[in-house]
């Protein structure tokens, strides 16, 4: 229950920053998807369950704050994360696979949200910035894990 409440609050903050601040600072085309980046940062840390819950909650917040159909972001982000968890468990693991997973997930998400109006370089650009954000969040969690989680919580299995 505590981690769900933590994820609810952190995703509200991420959605507020993504929708209001970062789109102005970096431009709409380069705006990283912080919600997806956070979910994938948890995926990088092998916290797959937490990542799925975060993608689910964050997707709903994203849709409620925006104008898209509520649930579409959750479906695409949770679906992408489940797919890449399967890939990680049974096919490929490693840094390159993690990068590709974020870029592909963000591209699929943008395709569902914007339709076919964007070109390939826009997908790539958005995917790149989202991947960068995921890596930054991952390193922040690794460095400060003992402040965020009680001592019984371990990141690496």
């Amino acid at each position: 229950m505590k981690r769900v409440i933590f994820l609810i609050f952190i995703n509200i903050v991420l959605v507020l920053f993504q929708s209001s601040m970062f789109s102005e600072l970096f431009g709409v085309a380069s705006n990283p998807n912080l919600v997806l980046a956070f979910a994938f940062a948890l995926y990088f840390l092998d916290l797959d369950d937490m990542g799925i819950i975060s993608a689910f909650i964050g997707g709903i917040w994203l849709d409620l704050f925006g104008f898209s159909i509520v649930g579409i972001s959750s479906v695409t982000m949770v679906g992408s994360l489940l797919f890449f968890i399967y890939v990680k468990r049974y096919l490929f693991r490693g840094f390159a696979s993690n990068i590709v997973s974020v870029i592909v997930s963000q591209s699929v998400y943008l395709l569902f949200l914007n339709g076919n109006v964007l070109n390939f370089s826009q997908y790539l650009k958005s995917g790149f910035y989202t991947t960068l954000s995921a890596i930054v969040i991952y390193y922040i969690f690794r460095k400060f894990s003992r402040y965020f989680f009680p001592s019984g919580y371990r990141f690496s299995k």
Partner: protein
Amino acid sequence: MKYLLASLLIFILGLFNFFAPIRGTLHFIFNPVQYGLQQTSANLVQGINFYSNLRNIYVQNMSLLEEKESLISEVQRLKDLEEENKILKQQLEISEYFDSEKGLILAKTLGNFADLTATSVILDKGTSHGVSTGDIVVKGRHFVGIIKETTTQRSVLELVTSPNLLFSVIDMETKTEGLAKGEFGTTVMMERILPGELVNVKDYIVTSGRDGKVLPGYLVGEITSVSEESAEVLRNASISVLVDVNNLGRVFVIPQK
């Protein structure tokens, strides 16, 4: 897997607009927060641009001071014309049939993070404030766009630079009419200019109101280039929008009803 199923269920409920009251409440609570964050970032970006462009700003400042002087004399001339117009109307007993300045709704822009084409922005006013789909949005005498979608607390403004927006315009100097269509970014294309019709660079283009969609007399932009004259083909002219669509701040919605 259960979260995917839950998301699908929420999506199906979302298709029937089940979450409209929750969305309205969230928008009502977070509108001021999002506007504050957005303005903070906009000010930060402006500050960074200012310091990195000091030399250009100086040159721009000098030319603006010169332009200001000529505009002051132009304003004086227009004031004289306005006075003359009033007297003539009184003499001919023509009454004002429409006052477009009444009933304006002030709205703040919140950006639109979901639209990567940057051709729409979200406003913090919706149907509960009197905004409806099809209302036009202006900033001063500049035409900014048309309301595309509404909820109770927010609405989506389709900008003048959107390729989905098509409206009739007229050249203020030569009275040439055409159709304007957005080109992504800060330009608008004036199309369907008949061969032989005159359109010059630096002419101001305003809405003509002929399509019934947009009120007449609102400034769209200034012509920056015209396609080559040809006897057979309809010509185009590129219009540079004079209002900064990436930093609108506050705008006015003119309700059509």
